[in-house]
């Protein structure tokens, strides 16, 4: 089971991991990835737009695909939307499994697909009021295509 959540507020990585592991004695590996707002070129803020009707459903489809490929993996994915400041967390992927290989692989898959198959768009904003929409990267497409 891999859960998906979409929210504007912050998340607590330690609590997410603890919730996955609670009551389990069969898990030997827990992996966690947090994506953060990086202040490239003096960036003042990053706004994440999403498609209200589709984004959560698409995140759930990505989670279901990971659960199908790695049946022994437990996990959760959380993606934020709205205006975020440098240093704030954007996305959290938490996985756990009996052995580390599956937990690492599922976490990487989840991030690669979130970046390329979930309808989010990032708009950068600088202190002088300039804004710019982030362009999609070919390297992200290549990372997602590894799992095809």
């Amino acid at each position, binding site marked *: 089971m891999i859960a998906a959540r979409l929210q504007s507020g912050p998340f607590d990585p330690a609590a997410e991991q603890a919730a996955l592991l609670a009551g389990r004695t069969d898990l030997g590996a827990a992996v966690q990835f947090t994506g953060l707002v990086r202040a490239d070129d003096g960036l003042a803020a990053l706004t994440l737009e999403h498609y209200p009707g589709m984004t959560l459903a698409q995140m759930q489809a990505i989670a279901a695909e990971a659960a199908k490929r790695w049946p022994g993996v437990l996990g959760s994915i959380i*993606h934020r939307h709205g205006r975020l400041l440098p240093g704030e967390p954007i996305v959290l992927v938490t996985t756990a499994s009996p052995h580390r290989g599956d937990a690492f692989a599922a976490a990487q898959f989840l991030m690669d697909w979130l970046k390329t198959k*979930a309808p989010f768009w990032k708009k950068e904003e600088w202190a002088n009021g300039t804004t710019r929409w982030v362009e999609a990267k070919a390297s992200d497409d290549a990372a997602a295509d590894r799992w095809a």
Partner: protein
Amino acid sequence: MMVELLYFAWVREQIGVDAETVALPANITSVAALLDWLASRSPGHAAALANRSRIRVAVDQAFATPDTPVAGAREIAIFPPVTGG
């Protein structure tokens, strides 16, 4: 046939609205034909849709290709390549 069009990110900004309901002409049967028809609606539409390699489409909330049929669709979203994560 009426269809709800949704726009996101810079596509929304260039067209100037986040949604519009349009009556699709019967001869508009594919995503590619829809984009051609939309581009003729206003200078904002034309600018937003000028470079089709930078446009992605979802028909009834499923990612589409230029060949995807639009007949009977209730909601069609038009947006740039996604940049989340």
